[in-house]
């Protein structure tokens, strides 16, 4: 029993930490895709966020904000992410570009632009390391609960709990408010929404920009908690994994959250399986590909049918049928 608990004390926090950026980014993808715009560019938006998070933190550090700097850094990244998402919005909503191609271009652009800027600002391939980090802490009171306390509330990043709270808020906004209803109607049947007087293009712009804001938050949280600095290799594939979590979670906030946590487990297991009894003999590669294989299986309907928003990937032109 003790052995199992020891294992859980290692795995559960690691899984939650790995899941946090995925959760936030998947919420971004949710806003965009619910409004009918595919967002393959989440990876690029996360890269932008990680860059903004680190550069913002360094900036606020030098301005003397001290330990609050990373939080302001995250806010800065949210802003940058939202602005950068405009590229995708303009191309895919106003210019009627293929949304997938536009998303692919966004990923390229983010990587090129951030590394270019890093080279221009820091004269080398990576930024300085931030000194005011968000560190792992014990949550008072809750961490004293036996069994659960050390598992869920000790040595954790506060950002994880902020992210969980955000998931609840996103669920409320998307499913319980008039704004959410409009957003979803635009993604399901834009012509009907238009007839009801909803501004389709505007709702989609909002959806895509929100996706940039949340993916920016996701990327920056990864950067200021786990990475500590920014280079071309900071974000490699987390954006795509967040997209996978969104699909695996069937385009719902709690589903995406669950999938993100599950993917977090797979990631945590792949790095620590060697130390765990019973898992030592399973090659690491199986844990590495697990999220992707599961997503494919989910899409094929083996894990319950995933139904995307109906108007996903279709540009809307007023008056067309």
């Amino acid at each position: 029993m003790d052995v199992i608990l020891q294992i859980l004390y290692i795995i559960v926090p690691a899984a939650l930490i790995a899941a946090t950026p995925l959760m936030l980014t998947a919420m971004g993808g949710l806003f965009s895709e619910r409004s009918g715009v595919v967002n393959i560019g989440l990876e690029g938006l996360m890269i932008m966020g990680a860059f903004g998070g680190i550069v913002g933190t360094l900036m606020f550090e030098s301005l003397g904000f001290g330990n609050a700097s990373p939080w302001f850094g995250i806010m800065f990244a949210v802003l940058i992410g939202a602005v950068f998402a405009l590229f995708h919005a303009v191309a895919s909503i106003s210019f009627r570009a293929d949304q997938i191609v536009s998303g692919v271009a966004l990923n390229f652009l983010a990587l090129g632009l951030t590394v270019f800027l890093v080279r221009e600002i820091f004269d080398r391939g990576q930024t300085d390391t931030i000194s005011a980090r968000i560190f792992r802490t014990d949550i008072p009171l809750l961490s004293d609960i036996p069994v659960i306390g050390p598992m869920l509330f000790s040595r954790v990043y506060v950002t994880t709990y902020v992210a969980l709270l955000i998931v609840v808020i996103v669920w409320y906004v998307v499913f319980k408010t008039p704004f959410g209803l409009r957003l979803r109607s635009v993604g399901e049947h834009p012509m009907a929404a238009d007839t009801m007087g909803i501004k389709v293009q505007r709702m989609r712009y909002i959806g895509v920009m929100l996706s940039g804001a949340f993916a920016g938050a996701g990327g920056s949280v990864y950067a200021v908690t786990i990475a500590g600095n920014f280079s071309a290799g900071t974000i490699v594939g987390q954006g795509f994994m967040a997209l996978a979590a969104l699909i695996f979670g069937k385009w719902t906030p709690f589903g995406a959250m669950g999938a993100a946590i599950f993917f977090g487990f797979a990631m945590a297991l792949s790095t620590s399986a060697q130390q765990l009894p019973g898992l030592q003999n399973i090659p690491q590669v199986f844990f590495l590909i697990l999220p992707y294989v599961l997503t494919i299986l989910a899409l094929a309907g083996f894990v319950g049918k995933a139904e995307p928003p109906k108007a996903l990937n279709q540009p809307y032109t007023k008056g067309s049928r």
Partner: protein
Amino acid sequence: MMNALKGKAFAIIVPLVAILFGFLAGALIMLLSGTNPITGYGALISGIVGTPYDFGETLQRMTPLIFSGLAVAFAFRTGLLNIGVEGQLIVGWFTSVYVGLAIEAPMVIHLPLAIVAGAVAGALWGFVPGLLKARFQVHEVIVTIMMNYIAMHVTNSLIRTYLLDSGQRTSFINPTASLESPFLSELTQFSRLHWGFFVAAAACVLMWFILWKTRKGFELRSVGYNKNASLYAGMSVNSNIILSMSVSGAFAGAGGAMVGLGTYQYANILPSFTNIGFDGIAVALLGGSTSVGIFLSSFLFGGLQQGANMMQSQAGVAPELVEIIIALIIFFVASSYVIRWALGRLQSRKEEK
């Protein structure tokens, strides 16, 4: 007024306008970062054609880009978007190198066998999303993205467990499976140019032949053009989807073989994607999914990547500027609707006068 001639003219004008905008944006970024764009682009051009070595390296970089461009274009023609070229290329690279290592045979057998092995591996990697699309209506884009990661992790793990030689790579392949060409290399001041360039050129002809000169090619294009009409005409849309993704994957896999058997002579553990497959999307888009267009646009992108080094050493411009330019070119080509619209407005205004 919207006659066929106008359509053809647009097919050439739109990519040119996109390239122009891409380079203008690049110039603007250089200006903002304090470099003279003329110096920067001068260095870029001299990095592409300045010396025989640079030119040889440009052609070498072009080779896999042609294949990945053909792969994306082939899927495009059937109305599919194959984002999985990257993964198909990786498994093709690995498999061709494996055949190059494991088998001993005379060159006439060994080399074609290794290339075909790469193509078959890529075809299998394309077959899966094709099958899922046809059988379960799963969108091919998401599946292929996932397949990319699976390809990278699986080949990395296979190399790490079974084939690791020194550092992060396998040992060199047997010379009988090599595309290396001392003649071409010497001709270009010992660049890495290899016979694969001519294989790639032949692949362009092959795609043109398949699409425009065979019955199956007509079917594939017809399915891409109008699914319902093709179905009504008695074509099996589903089998064409599977076939198209497999052929597309085969092109990508053969591209991987060019990298493995030609450029590097080994396979290595990849820390991240090669991006050759993703660049194929840009190549195919810019080339209008035609063989000639793909050949030309892969020269542009291969040249940009090669010239980027010179831009850094001579003009102090970070090589990532090239990636920015390529990304913007994709944006502009993808947004061709606006370019067409703007050109249309200009034209009609002229006619009014």
